[in-house]
């Protein structure tokens, strides 16, 4: 009698079942709630983890195969870029200052996201989200690594890349803004993490972060960054879907979850939008060849796309975050306010700044007809007059910071762009200052958390930001120079004006050699 041959390969559906759901088990030596202590304390109620729908149905073996193939292609392009002096193909070396901001401000977040998703995967009792979080965790560490590799080529030729993605994130004043955002999320429970990063950051705001940087790279001839962007794109699509699935899952599991989820959406939308101030500035001021204005990006990716998303979530009872009213005002201001800040503190930054030229100011007037000529052109014009007289303005005093977003208090009142917005709270007899109703609201909700904030200005005054062995009592002690040393910012090389910088001179000389005979 013929033996019936066993099937050698599992079907996709069976494979998915075995390789994801089949990997879970209930513990017996210890009760489940002891093994998964973080699953319940935030107040989110989950009745049936099996209801989790995995939209991608990706299994680990397939994951490795796809990612390996993608990375082979990525590294082939990066090698070609390096060997062919690809850095000379960019529009202008001024562009690289946006890349420096990306490397020092965004790449480290990828690494923290890796750790955060690993922790979320560990802490969720449900096997579906655990596997999804595991893959995202690996994606994020790959992204940190591939970004560092993609951008390391620039470090051979230009200033400001040498401290890379690790040293400055824990020290430099403006990098505390993205860092504190992720610290805030990582120190919350796993469900809040998923709303903060999985939903707000990856779903609601990711287009505003990645599209501008990647389109900016494409417009400005930066093939290294473009290639990385393409490579990461399929991962990002999966991350966005995970964030959305997670929020729907929470809302479908129990009606009591709605107010908690709404609170987190409100909080993390505002936190994210504050961080994106840096991106707005990059789009409007840092790209030699501009893609679109920050305001246009906001209208397309947040107001239109985000609006559709919130319509979709309305059936669960989710409302559009209240802060959006203020964002509608802010979209015409924040990029200018941010660049004005970096211009005057350029001596303390790891990239170069410049004043917009006449053509750029006209572009800004056209893109911001309600605000640029009225409020911001006069500022840039007067700074230019000072600079032309040899009196380039550098601000010599440390600014007051917001306790929550940690951005200097540069934002103005929603109803008056000529008045700085001051908000104040008191907790345990101590005063705390915030830049907006949004940040004040977040502080007042969890003051115990934000009183611990590592505010760079206060830390400098406490004496915690000097190299080891510094004696601040010696004659002629210059605290600013010591802080820069501690930041690993080389004074006179990495910081201050682009005009007259080594980057400018070298790029001109090298490109000259590539295109001329002399």
């Amino acid at each position, binding site marked *: 009698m013929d033996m019936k041959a066993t099937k050698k390969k599992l079907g996709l559906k069976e494979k998915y079942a075995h390789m994801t759901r089949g990997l879970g088990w209930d513990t017996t030596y210890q009760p489940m709630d002891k093994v998964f202590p973080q699953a319940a304390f935030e107040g989110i109620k989950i009745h049936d983890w099996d209801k989790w729908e995995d939209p991608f149905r990706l299994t680990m073996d397939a994951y490795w195969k796809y990612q390996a193939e993608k990375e082979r292609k990525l590294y082939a392009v990066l090698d070609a870029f390096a060997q062919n002096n690809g850095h000379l193909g960019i529009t202008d070396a001024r562009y690289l200052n946006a890349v420096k901001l990306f490397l020092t401000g965004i790449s480290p977040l990828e690494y923290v996201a890796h750790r955060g998703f690993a922790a979320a995967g560990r802490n969720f009792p449900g096997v579906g989200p655990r596997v999804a979080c595991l893959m995202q965790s690996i994606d994020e560490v790959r992204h940190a690594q591939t970004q560092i590799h993609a951008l390391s080529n620039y470090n051979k030729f230009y200033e400001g890349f040498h401290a890379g993605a690790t040293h400055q994130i824990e020290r430099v004043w403006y990098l505390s803004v993205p860092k504190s955002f992720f610290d805030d999320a990582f120190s919350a429970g796993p469900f809040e993490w998923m709303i903060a990063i999985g939903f707000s950051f990856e779903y609601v705001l990711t287009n505003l972060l990645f599209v501008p940087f990647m389109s900016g790279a494409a417009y400005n001839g930066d093939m290294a960054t473009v290639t990385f962007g393409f490579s990461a794109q399929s991962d990002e699509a999966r991350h966005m879907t995970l964030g959305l699935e997670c929020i729907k899952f929470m809302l479908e599991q129990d009606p009591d979850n709605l107010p908690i989820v709404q609170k987190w959406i409100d909080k993390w939308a505002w936190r994210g939008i504050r961080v994106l101030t840096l991106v707005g500035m990059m789009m409007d001021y840092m790209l030699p060849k501009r893609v679109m204005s920050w305001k246009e990006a906001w209208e397309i990716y947040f107001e239109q796309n985000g609006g559709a998303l919130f319509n979709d979530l309305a059936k669960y009872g989710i409302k559009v975050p209240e802060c959006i009213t203020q964002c509608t005002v802010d979209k015409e201001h924040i990029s200018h306010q941010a660049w004005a800040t970096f211009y005057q503190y350029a001596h303390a930054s790891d990239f170069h700044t410049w004043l917009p030229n006449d053509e750029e100011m006209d572009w800004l007037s056209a893109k911001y007809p309600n605000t640029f000529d009225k409020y911001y052109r006069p*500022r840039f014009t007067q700074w230019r007059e000072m600079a032309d007289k040899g009196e380039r303005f550098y601000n010599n005093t440390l600014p007051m910071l917001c306790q929550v977003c940690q951005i200097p208090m540069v934002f103005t009142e929603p109803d008056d762009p000529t008045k700085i917005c001051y908000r104040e709270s008191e907790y345990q007899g101590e005063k705390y200052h915030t830049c907006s109703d949004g940040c004040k609201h977040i502080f007042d909700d969890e003051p115990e958390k934000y009183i611990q904030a590592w505010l760079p200005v206060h830390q400098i005054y406490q004496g915690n930001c000097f190299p080891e062995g510094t004696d601040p009592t010696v004659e002629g002690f210059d605290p600013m120079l010591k802080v820069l040393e501690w930041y690993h910012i080389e004074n006179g090389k990495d910081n201050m004006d682009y005009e007259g910088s080594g980057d400018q001179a070298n790029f001109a000389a090298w490109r000259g050699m590539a295109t001329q005979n002399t």
Partner: protein
Amino acid sequence: MAVKALYDYNYPAADTQDKFHGNQLLYVGWDDHLMFCAPFAYCLPPDTKFSELVEKHLPHSYSRHPDWAQIDFAKAVWLKSGQPFQPDMNKTLAEQGLKHKDVLRLQTPGLNGNGTYF
């Protein structure tokens, strides 16, 4: 609302006055002068006289603005936490009740960067 946590969540504040080596933080903003993007944070001994703040520390930060020399401090308006505040030039910060992390706003009516708020 309090932080939800698995344990008693209680950590010290990072910026209490004892950490500033005998000094206190004082924030000062000059309204209508956005050449300076944000209010300033000063770290000063509590026995700093208000006159020293006005004659030494603020000019160090602000004097590059052409309006600074025009200020008539007899007419200047001060706010503390948004409320009217009448400083006494001859008293110290501590003597006039200025505490750690207080915020002052200096208003100089008529001066606003020639209407540009620069």
